[in-house]
């Protein structure tokens, strides 16, 4: 049924046969080290890249459009599929934006649980980053090691919310569930072992000649370039800008915990690798402190705001008014006040922002997802020229882009 002449993608219209000795290389969209569906059109002078055009949109699923057609709670599971390596941080960013819009204060236990989710997700994301980047560069052992630890973290998350990848573990106004039995003990057990594991990875990589050659002084991003491209997270901190939203604009309980923000001024791949490793240690440090906080919190998990948030399950089952209110909130949705809000959180990849324009309806009028990876992909067009082909893989690796987030 398929006709040969039908299948003519756009790049076939490009003239590959050129007089000026320049080669055009098509990289992706299905490439094992493209971290998803990145397509790069690379102009090459021998092995050196002269121009790079990243082409994205191969995973554009229309999330912003979906948000305009969904009630606020309905959109929560969709946010999971943005940065699917660390789903809870997306859930949290959205929940926080809506909470800021309607002016809610979340109970302390919910805050503690959210902190745990956020930091375990950060660990998961960084471990995954390490695994895939090491695999791309050829260090298969690190891939297997890091996935082993990640599976343990996924077990923990699964104990909490039942899902491995797409958690939907945060609700607007709190969290749906209390911690399961043994969660704290298990997490503590994992954290006790984590420094050893991180040391294993570093022992394998830090003095590895291949790793150093592929990482050091490759993909150097200057401070000006990083700021101009709107970089955030590790991409920005590796270029010498000390900016961590957890520290500068603290949300949740980040102002109560003690942690450092690792910064480097080298700006190359190796600096970014070191920062990821340092951030894993900091996350562990935060988690230890948050685990201690859990004990002293009250039993409430959801904020009390009958206009916006359903009552606890026990009330819905026993009290008529709570049931009616729950019914209205589920079928028609909450209606936040008229106004707009932009809330930025520090996701594992960088600044994850939600811009919500509410016109007082049950559906957001406009919801813009500010995903950090979008700009981290854009910077490739300025970063790659001058590098050689093998560097492309290591640079894409250390930018830590996730295509669910880039294309939304």
């Amino acid at each position, binding site marked *: 049924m398929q006709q040969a002449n039908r299948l003519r993608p*756009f790049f076939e219209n490009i003239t590959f046969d050129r007089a000026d000795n320049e080669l055009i290389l098509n990289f992706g969209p299905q490439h094992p080290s493209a971290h998803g569906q990145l397509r790069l059109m690379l102009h090459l002078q021998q092995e050196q890249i002269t121009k790079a055009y990243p082409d994205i949109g191969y995973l554009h699923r229309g999330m912003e459009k979906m948000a*305009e057609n969904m009630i606020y709670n309905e959109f929560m599971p969709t946010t999971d599929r943005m940065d699917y390596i660390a789903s809870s941080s997306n859930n949290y960013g959205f929940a926080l934006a809506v909470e800021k819009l309607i002016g809610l204060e979340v109970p302390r236990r919910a805050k503690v649980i959210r902190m745990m989710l956020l930091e375990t997700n950060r660990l998961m994301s960084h471990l995954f980053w390490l695994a895939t980047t090491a695999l791309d560069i050829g260090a298969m052992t690190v891939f297997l090691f890091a996935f082993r630890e990640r599976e343990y973290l996924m077990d923990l998350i699964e104990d909490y919310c039942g899902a491995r990848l797409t958690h939907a573990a945060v609700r607007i106004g709190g969290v749906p569930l209390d911690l399961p039995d043994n969660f704290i003990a298990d997490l503590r057990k994992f954290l006790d072992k984590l420094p050893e594991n991180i040391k294993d990875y570093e022992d394998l990589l830090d003095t590895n000649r291949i790793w150093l050659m592929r990482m050091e002084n490759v993909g150097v991003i200057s401070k000006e370039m990083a700021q101009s*491209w709107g970089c955030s997270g590790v991409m920005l901190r590796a270029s010498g800008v000390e900016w961590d939203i957890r520290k500068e604009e603290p949300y949740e309980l980040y102002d109560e915990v003690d942690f450092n923000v690792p910064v480097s001024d080298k700006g190359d791949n190796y600096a970014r690798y070191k920062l990821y490793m340092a951030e894993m240690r900091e996350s562990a440090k935060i988690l230890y402190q948050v685990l201690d906080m859990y004990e002293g919190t009250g039993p409430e998990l959801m904020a009390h705001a009958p206009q916006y948030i359903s009552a606890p399950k026990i009330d819905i089952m026993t009290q008529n008014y709570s049931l009616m209110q729950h019914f209205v909130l589920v079928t028609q949705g909450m209606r936040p006040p008229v*106004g707009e*809000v*932009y809330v930025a959180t520090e996701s594992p990849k960088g600044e994850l*922002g939600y811009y919500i324009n509410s016109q007082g309806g049950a559906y957001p009028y406009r919801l813009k997802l500010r995903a950090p990876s979008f700009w981290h992909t854009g910077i490739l067009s300025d970063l790659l020229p001058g590098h050689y082909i093998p560097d492309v893989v290591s640079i894409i690796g250390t930018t830590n882009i996730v295509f669910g987030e880039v*294309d939304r």
Partner: protein
Amino acid sequence: MRAYTPKDDVQKKPYYTDRYWVAPQVAKSDVSEDAVFAADFEAIKAKFDVLDAYIQVGQMVIVINAADNFGVIELMKNELAYNQLSELSAIDWLAQEGKFEIFYQMLSMSKRKRVRVKCKISEKESIQSVEKLFRSADWSEREMYDMFGVVVNNHPFMKRILMPDDWEGFPLRKTYPLQGDEFAQWYEVDKLFGKEAREIIGPEIRDSARVDRYDTERFARLGHEVPRGADISQGEPDTPLCYQENEGVFMIEKFDAEKSVVISDRDR
């Protein structure tokens, strides 16, 4: 008679709204309440027309004329230390007032402040690119063009970014349905197999609530697998889950559940 549905906004609407319901407002406070914002506001006001300014949820919102956008952003970058353009996009107000609202979300790392600069342009107008000031605007403006059809002047590479180059329509406009127009719905079929294959492949099944218990053309239930297209309205036989065929597999030892070991204590 069919109920009238507005054609200029085809997005989902709540099916019921209490007629006495008045939407509350998110509190806006005056710019003078925050010293940093007040100083920034004065600096911008001295050079450009400011149509409106207020503080909402801890961030200053400044509404300016669309013609001043480059000047205001340049001033904010060079003199007021707003060193990142974290977000830039548009909002479709075509149905209400025939305009797009464009917002620039600015961040000052030294002051730890965020400001949103907004302006409105009509559908046929275009806006000046700020790509010269912030490289991040390069991709944001392309995305804005892709999603809304807002043309940006002086942009180095004004092409679609998320949708394919031959896409028709601007998806985030309110007139564009969530599930796409006819072009979108047949896009991959037309492109790969040609329009004449539409009848063979058939329309997309877009009804997300559709559950056909007896459909064996597309799916079979796990443990109840039947041949494709079989009629199962009278019930289907159970197919026990098995990892290998009953008679065993050539040269492969059969899995024996009795002899296998379950590791319950994972070494955490």
